[in-house]
């Protein structure tokens, strides 16, 4: 304040310090608790990245070095976008957390290995730049950035996004890596034209489990995804209820409405297994529906959310315009998260027996 003036008639006691030399220690003054557990947000993100590595390895095994290239490009694009925006906005937020890496890897995992690298970069940049940073960065977005990036690519380059390559290993049976169509697309086609043979699909299950099938590069190997998922479950980073309910819902629905008219024939039993192993359900259930930022924070809400994902996945797979329904169903359920959170507040201690 410029127009303020101290009366300076008789200057006294220039030193602000107490003259009698009393030493005053300055301790830190904070609110309790004075103990904090050591794990931080970047630890969590780092473990997610580690848990994604087996699937990346599977992707490289089945689709060749192109898979690695796409992942690296996608991660780099995510990091560079986040860095540029943080710089531009002059935010003090630390970029050291691994959240951009997670997003980058997940974007790459959700595209076909034949996608041109620059498309993956665009998807990654969109995921970080539009779906995440516009809302203020980590923790502020309402929709899963990686899935938003995939949906954006899906709408922007529909043909490139649905062109899949066979795996490097080739044929073991009818449904495998040879064909460029994804397992679910083949299933849908077979159901539509009536050529569905339970035996073909039964043989395919082991390929699906190991990952020797066409599809997005991160979703092929259910085994690798399961390994990563179990790691995250063990580290208590993701709650069991989301993958369990999600996969369970899809399993049940695809068993009940299996389209064969019976429930205990061999094909009727194979169909639900086929459904849960194919089409990135494990990737979605373990790594994307469990995204902390965009899934409900309340324990009951997580169940509602996961069940909703399961129902939508099933509906889109069975009746929708796409053979795969995982990414859209999670995106759609992301929109419902605030409403779910509102209506699933945990029951507070002492609330039941309130006197009035």
């Amino acid at each position: 304040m410029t127009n303020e003036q101290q009366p300076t008639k008789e200057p006294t006691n220039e030193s602000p310090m107490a003259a009698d030399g009393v030493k005053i220690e300055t301790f830190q003054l904070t609110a309790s608790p004075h103990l904090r557990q050591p794990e931080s947000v970047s630890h969590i993100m780092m473990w997610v990245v580690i848990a994604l590595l087996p699937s990346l390895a599977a992707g490289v095994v089945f689709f060749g070095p192109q898979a690695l290239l796409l992942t690296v490009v996608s991660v780099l694009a995510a990091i560079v976008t986040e860095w540029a925006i943080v710089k531009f906005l002059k935010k003090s937020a630390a970029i050291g957390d691994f959240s951009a890496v997670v997003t980058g890897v997940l974007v790459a995992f959700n595209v076909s290995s034949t996608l041109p690298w620059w498309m993956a970069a665009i998807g990654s940049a969109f995921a970080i730049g539009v779906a995440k940073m516009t809302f203020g960065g980590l923790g502020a977005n309402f929709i899963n950035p990686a899935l938003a990036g995939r949906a954006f690519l899906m709408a922007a380059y529909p043909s490139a996004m649905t062109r899949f390559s066979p795996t490097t290993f080739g044929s073991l049976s009818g449904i495998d890596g040879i064909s460029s169509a994804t397992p679910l697309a083949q299933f849908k086609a077979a159901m539509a034209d009536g050529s569905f043979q339970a035996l073909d699909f039964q043989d395919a299950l082991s390929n699906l489990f190991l990952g020797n099938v066409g599809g997005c590069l991160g979703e092929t190997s259910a085994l690798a995804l399961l390994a990563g998922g179990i790691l995250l479950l063990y580290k208590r980073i993701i709650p069991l209820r989301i993958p369990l309910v999600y996969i369970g819902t899809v399993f049940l629905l695809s068993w009940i409405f299996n389209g064969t008219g019976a429930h205990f024939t061999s094909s009727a039993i194979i169909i639900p297994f086929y459904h849960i192993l194919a089409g990135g359900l494990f990737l979605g259930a373990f790594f994307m529906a469990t995204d902390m930022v965009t899934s409900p924070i309340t324990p009951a809400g997580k169940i509602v959310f996961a069940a909703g994902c399961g129902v939508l996945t099933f509906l889109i797979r069975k009746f929708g315009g796409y053979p795969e329904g995982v990414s859209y169903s999670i995106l759609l359920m992301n929109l419902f998260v605030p409403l779910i959170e509102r209506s699933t507040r945990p029951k507070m201690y002492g609330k039941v027996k309130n006197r009035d």
Partner: protein
Amino acid sequence: MMNPISLIEISIGAIFINNFVLSRFLGLCPFFGVSKKVSSAAGMGMAVIFVMTIASSFSWVIFNYILHPYHIEYLRTIVFILVIAGLVQLVEMALQKYSPTLYESLGIFLPLITTNCAVLGVAIINTDLNQTTGSPYTFIESLLNGIMSGVGFSLALLLMAGIREKTEFSPVPKALEGLPIAFITAGLMALAFLGFSGLNFFPAVGG
């Protein structure tokens, strides 16, 4: 004529696939204006469903019994808007007089809706189908389309309000605060709603 399958198809289409806000760009002003709180979004949603029902039924009657027989379809814009504005105002007055509580929760949104493209839009879409396709909407179908479009609008509005209540906590960059971030939110919602495209519960019937 009263094919239940086509009725379900109309509903699914109006709510999810051709959502008024997220795919047709109709009713954006109230969508962005009244989506800051879930409670007011719910009130607005009810009001929109109500007005859309009135609008689609009355406009169907007028179009099919007055404008169409006398070949003055080109007057529908002017007539529809008059009818809708007049009706809504009547309803609003009646509410204010006879049910102040309902007016408090619903009525305050009514003036916002009268001159809203979603409401006129549903009337015009209903009659547009009459003009272009061989099979015009029946009264029931038209009414259902009105109600379900309103439901679709309300769904989008509720989701938007929930998300905006949540992103209110977010440190959105200054230049994007307010409307721009709401647009981005709507864009991302529209992106997610693309997942519904091609949704068809009766492939054999719907084709």
